[in-house]
């Protein structure tokens, strides 16, 4: 009965190479249009610009792999950032404690998502639509609408840079890459990681196979919440302030990155490294189009076309390989 040769299975880091090709094509295009594009400094800049969405997208990937979706990731991140900065700058709480509190808040949101989704069996779309509003309002209330300035240097340490072959690289970008490595390893090489795929692709089967789907899902949402806390720290480090209006576009941007990276919104299928590629595609386009002098309305237009085109291409090439 085994009529299918196993060309499908080799250690594939990406669920498909379509997104990677799109990224390379975009880079080639912009390199041809602007000789500033391919400089070390510029590429490091792109990395730095995507680090916040990149880390959000790791959490978002976990959630989407379980066939969920998180509309609130950016709003929760903003709340985490405001908690960290108000504690550290306004109340003089020691930096490690402030960071822990901020991450605690974002993780709590994740746990709440998990509980509502598993215990009451509410759709993730709704739960996170609700927490999107809640987190936004809490952020405004907690910050009284004010940007938090004067944060201690230690809280912004991930925004510092080091030299690598003449290019300045920000520590936060390295942290993002490390987190991608860890997530990739965990999803691929551990039982829990495979269970995440199983729960997303066939929840009932996973349950019947003895996987504690409830605990697993709560764990996934909690971990995603923790990652939003890390993103909050990166966002604070990047801008040097606690910004109550941070993250508003990141909610959809993180989802866009995951989807551009080839992860299926129906769950079970995809790779977290794809999300990194997806985040980079968006970052490269924004950077490259600005270098070319394209105004932001056209950039939005291009992003829209890009999202559809990238996913369509991915879909078509997948079908071709069947």
């Amino acid at each position, binding site marked *: 009965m085994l009529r299918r040769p196993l060309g499908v299975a080799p250690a594939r880091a990406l669920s498909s190479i379509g997104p990677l090709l799109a990224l390379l094509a975009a880079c080639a295009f912009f390199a041809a*249009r*602007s*000789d*500033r594009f391919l400089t070390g*400094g*510029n590429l490091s*800049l792109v990395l*730095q*610009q995507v680090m*916040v969405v990149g880390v959000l997208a790791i959490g978002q990937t976990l959630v989407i792999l379980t066939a969920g979706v998180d509309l609130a990731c950016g709003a929760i991140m903003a709340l985490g950032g405001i908690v960290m900065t108000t504690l550290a700058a306004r109340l003089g709480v020691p930096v490690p404690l402030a960071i822990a509190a901020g991450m605690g808040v974002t993780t709590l949101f994740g746990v709440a998502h998990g509980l509502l989704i598993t215990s009451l069996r509410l759709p993730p779309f709704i739960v996170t639509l609700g927490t999107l509003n809640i987190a936004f309002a809490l952020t*405004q209330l907690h*910050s*009284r*609408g*004010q*940007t938090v*300035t004067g944060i201690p240097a230690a809280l912004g340490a991930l925004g510092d840079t080091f030299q690598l072959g003449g290019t300045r690289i920000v520590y936060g970008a390295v942290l993002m890459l490390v987190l991608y490595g860890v997530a990739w390893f965990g999803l691929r090489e551990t039982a829990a990681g495979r269970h995440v795929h199983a729960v997303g692709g066939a929840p009932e089967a996973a349950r019947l196979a003895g996987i504690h789907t409830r605990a697993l899902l709560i764990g996934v949402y909690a971990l995603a919440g923790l990652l939003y806390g890390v993103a909050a720290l990166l*966002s604070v480090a*990047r*801008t*040097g*302030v606690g*910004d*109550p*209006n*941070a*993250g*508003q*576009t*990141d909610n959809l941007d993180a989802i866009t990155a995951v989807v551009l990276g080839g992860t299926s919104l129906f769950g079970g299928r995809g790779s977290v490294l794809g999300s990194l590629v997806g985040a980079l595609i968006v970052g490269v386009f*924004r*950077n490259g189009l*600005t*270098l*070319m*002098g394209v*105004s*932001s*309305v056209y950039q*939005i237009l291009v992003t829209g076309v890009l999202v559809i085109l990238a996913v369509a291409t991915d879909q078509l090439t997948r079908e071709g390989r069947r």
Partner: protein
Amino acid sequence: AGCAREQSSQPIIGLITKTETNPFFVKMREGAEAAAKARGARLLSGAGRNDGDNAGQVTAMENMIAAGARVILITVSDAKAIVPAIAKARRDGILVIALDSPTDPVTAVDALFATDNYRAGTLIGQYARAALAGKPARIATLDLLPGHPVGAQRHNGFLAGFGLAAPDAGSTTLGTAQEVVCSVDTYGDQTRGQTAMENCLQRDPGINVVYTVNEPSAAGAHKALVAAGREKDVIVVSVDGGCQGVRDVGAGHIAATAQQYPLRMAELGVEAGVDFVKSGKKPSGYTDTGVALVAARPVSGVESLGVDVGLQRCFGDR
């Protein structure tokens, strides 16, 4: 420049607005483009995705500097949040000029070409108080969005001009007063302004003064007042002085508006930028690009321009 490859001799100036979707900023960009063309400079323009999108402005700034811009003109979305990014750019030798609204602190940029939004609020506050002629005030404020400095400055300036206790120009907290019976955020949007006014009239039908943060929200408020049959006896005041807004003043929809001059800001900014690239001369300090009250019916004790003058100086589609 035909193809986008930059020529190294040409000065490159970056203009970053809050959004690209507001006629005020559209006009500012057009003015900057014209000024840049006249002086042989190349203009890059960018914006945040929505008002308050600080991260988007930071990204735009970084990308423009990567594209070779030596000068950044910026209307900041968040007066405080942008400061570290500006400091970094200035350390790298970039000239940064704030247009339209100040950073906090003001000294974070090399120079500021702006309207005083607090003063704009004060002017319309004074006008409304005089126009009310001693009747007890019942005020509705249709505000911008939570925590926005420009929204707070206009709102608080209005209260101060009206003779009520108000926070000073540095605050981003909206002042309250007994006379203010209804406050709603409209995000400067016409539809939301209309809904807000409708609901405020339900809350207190006796409202007789409406402060609006900009002219689209004033237009929405007017529509709600007409529906309630109250358009004749309620004083609506606003800020911006766009051509449509001034026409609304002429039509009696808005009693008075405080006019600003985005074209002038943009021209001054581009001029200073080109000078800097050519001669290294840096502008400094605050240049008030002016604000003037436009009213169809002047009131005594408050200086104002007529509608025709306002129309000559306005921005937007004439």
